[in-house]
């Protein structure tokens, strides 16, 4: 739109810049706090210009939080959840859109219903299953009076326990379903005429076409699973080996213990460490999917 409305332009720009500043101020404060020594950071008011202890604080935080190990855990978990979610979402949407079978609509609605059941709502049964993965089967067997000696198998203190319960995703399935519905039928038919079976069509036509979708989903899901707090806290007792970054943060942020001075500078440095990967993923994937959007084929 080409219009000359200087007043309106000024107002929109002021609004944009204002929101940007409002958005960045917390980050600035974190950064400033992470760059002062213990005494300066506890002054009232806190200084608004960065100090000279940044690297020192970062090193302390890294060491105290055992971040070498913990960050790796978080990356494995968030990466695993993201990949798992994308795979599950793409496959389930593929099944719902491209195949005609009896319980198709039932399946669709079952997935739909899980939208209303986030982890927090079903956390007790989910934990029960994580503590004894074969328990549902045992319950079924008991119902029919069959006694089968199933082995104990728990997911506590393991990557699978951290990842698997978070993977189910109705949102992703819907996103993919929406995308698959926009793929023209003729393309599917052309692939059929070329001799392609469903698996090949899925892998070689649908997946490459859904790259931008995947990037969007990956961004959202990575950030979401990185920020998971409640579930890791429940399922991990072996904090030495399986703690995630968000869990670790809680130990560094000063707790409500009287008489203990809050070590804000180190806590803020730890904060910076923890928020780096999701920010990087967002920046990287966002650029990628914007590029994808620009060059989308007609």
């Amino acid at each position, binding site marked *: 739109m080409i219009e000359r409305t200087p007043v309106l332009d000024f107002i929109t720009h002021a609004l944009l810049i204002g929101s940007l500043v409002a958005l960045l101020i917390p980050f600035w404060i974190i950064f400033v706090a992470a760059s002062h020594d213990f005494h300066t950071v506890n002054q009232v008011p806190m200084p608004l210009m960065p100090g000279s202890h940044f690297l020192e604080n970062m090193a302390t935080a890294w060491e105290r939080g055992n971040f070498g190990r913990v960050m790796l855990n978080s990356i494995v978990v968030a990466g695993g959840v993201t990949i798992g979610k994308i795979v599950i979402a793409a496959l389930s949407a593929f099944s719902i859109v491209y195949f005609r079978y009896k319980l198709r609509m039932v399946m669709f609605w079952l997935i739909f219903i899980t939208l209303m059941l986030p982890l927090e709502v079903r956390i007790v049964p989910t934990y029960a299953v994580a503590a004894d993965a074969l328990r549902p089967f045992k319950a079924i067997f008991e119902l029919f009076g069959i006694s089968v000696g199933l082995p104990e198998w728990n997911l506590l203190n393991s990557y699978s326990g951290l990842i698997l319960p978070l993977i189910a995703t109705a949102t992703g399935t819907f996103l993919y379903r929406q995308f698959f519905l926009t793929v023209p039928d*003729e393309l599917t*038919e*052309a*692939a*059929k*005429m*070329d*001799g392609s079976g469903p698996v090949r069509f899925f892998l070689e*036509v649908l997946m490459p076409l859904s790259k931008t979708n995947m990037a969007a989903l990956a961004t959202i899901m990575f950030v979401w699973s990185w920020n998971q707090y409640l579930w890791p806290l429940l399922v991990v007792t072996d904090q030495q080996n399986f703690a995630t970054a968000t869990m670790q943060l809680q130990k560094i942020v000063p707790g409500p213990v009287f008489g203990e001075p809050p070590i804000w500078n180190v806590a803020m440095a730890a904060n910076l460490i923890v928020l780096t990967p999701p920010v990087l993923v967002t920046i990287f994937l966002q650029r990628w999917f914007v590029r994808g959007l620009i060059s989308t*084929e007609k």
Partner: protein
Amino acid sequence: MAEITLRDVRKSYAKNEVVHGVNLDVASGELIVILGPSGCGKSTLLRMVAGLESITSGEVAIAGRVVNRLEPRERGCAMVFQNYALYPHMSVAKNIGYSLKIAGLSKAERTERVNKVAATLGLTDFLERKPAQLSGGQRQRVAMGRAMIREPKVFLYDEPLSNLDATLRVAMRVEIRKLHQRLGATTLFVTHDQVEAMTLADRIVVMNKGGIEQVGTPSEVYGRPETTYVANFIGSPGLNLLKGAAHPDEGVIKLPDGQQLAYDRNQWPEIGHGPVVVGFRAEAVKFGSGPLSARFDFAEELGIAKLLHGSFGGQGMIVHVATHEDLQSGQPFFFSVDPRDIQLFDADGGRRLEEARTPAARTKIAAPIQVRA
């Protein structure tokens, strides 16, 4: 042996039958054009041959093998779609070579064949481009290349030219014809454009409302339409069709207003007394003088000629005249029609009436299907 055989092929969606018992034999190497108005079931028929649509009842055989239950890839057909359906994320070369990749050919072999096909279609310079970077005509050619590369026994085209502009359409039409002559593959070509049908076809299948009205060479379909539907559908304008009453004793058809059209009694010896539909081409009318008169309504300019719309015995009629003829609306004009140009149809069903089996006529009917080499 027939390459494609359709035996009483029907298609229903739920309870709604859209193709009603089609029978057709397509000779090997023949180019058949399926012509009909929108919604008459042309695509459905083609897709049943391709295997993209299940066959409700009847039998489709390709090269003597019933293919009803075979997957598309097992039928040996290649198809060109109306919207080309190119894979947007693959380059032209990959689009063309995809079926070979699926068939498990080596990279070297694929490249060689892709290059050959691209050369015949003039696509060599575009091999690395994505479909979005091509013009409509180039995309069309890629779609054809994708079909050609498999060297199929049967080519299926579903209105492949309808998205192109007029000039390009003519050019591609010629290319398809040339390609057909070179490859000699049996071809089914669906269109609703009769010029396309006339120029391309060895034989035309005229469809209407899910059934076949007539199968014949372009000249048969144009010159001897089997039904009033075909008569009206083929040619622009279609045959003039007027209701009248046959008087075989006098050899004339009388129109309601008393005017008389003479017909050739040798050609139509067994006409009964009573109502008939009489037809003649706008081009067959001799304009200017004659025993017949009609009232002029309006004219359509064609450039090289003019179409006069008039009313003849109270019924609409179109006459093809030279451009310099100029008439006022409501003015009468005079004309005549050679009795040999008169065609007669049943007043009820609209079927062509029985003609004399003169030796000339008989050979014409019994002549084997002409396959242009």
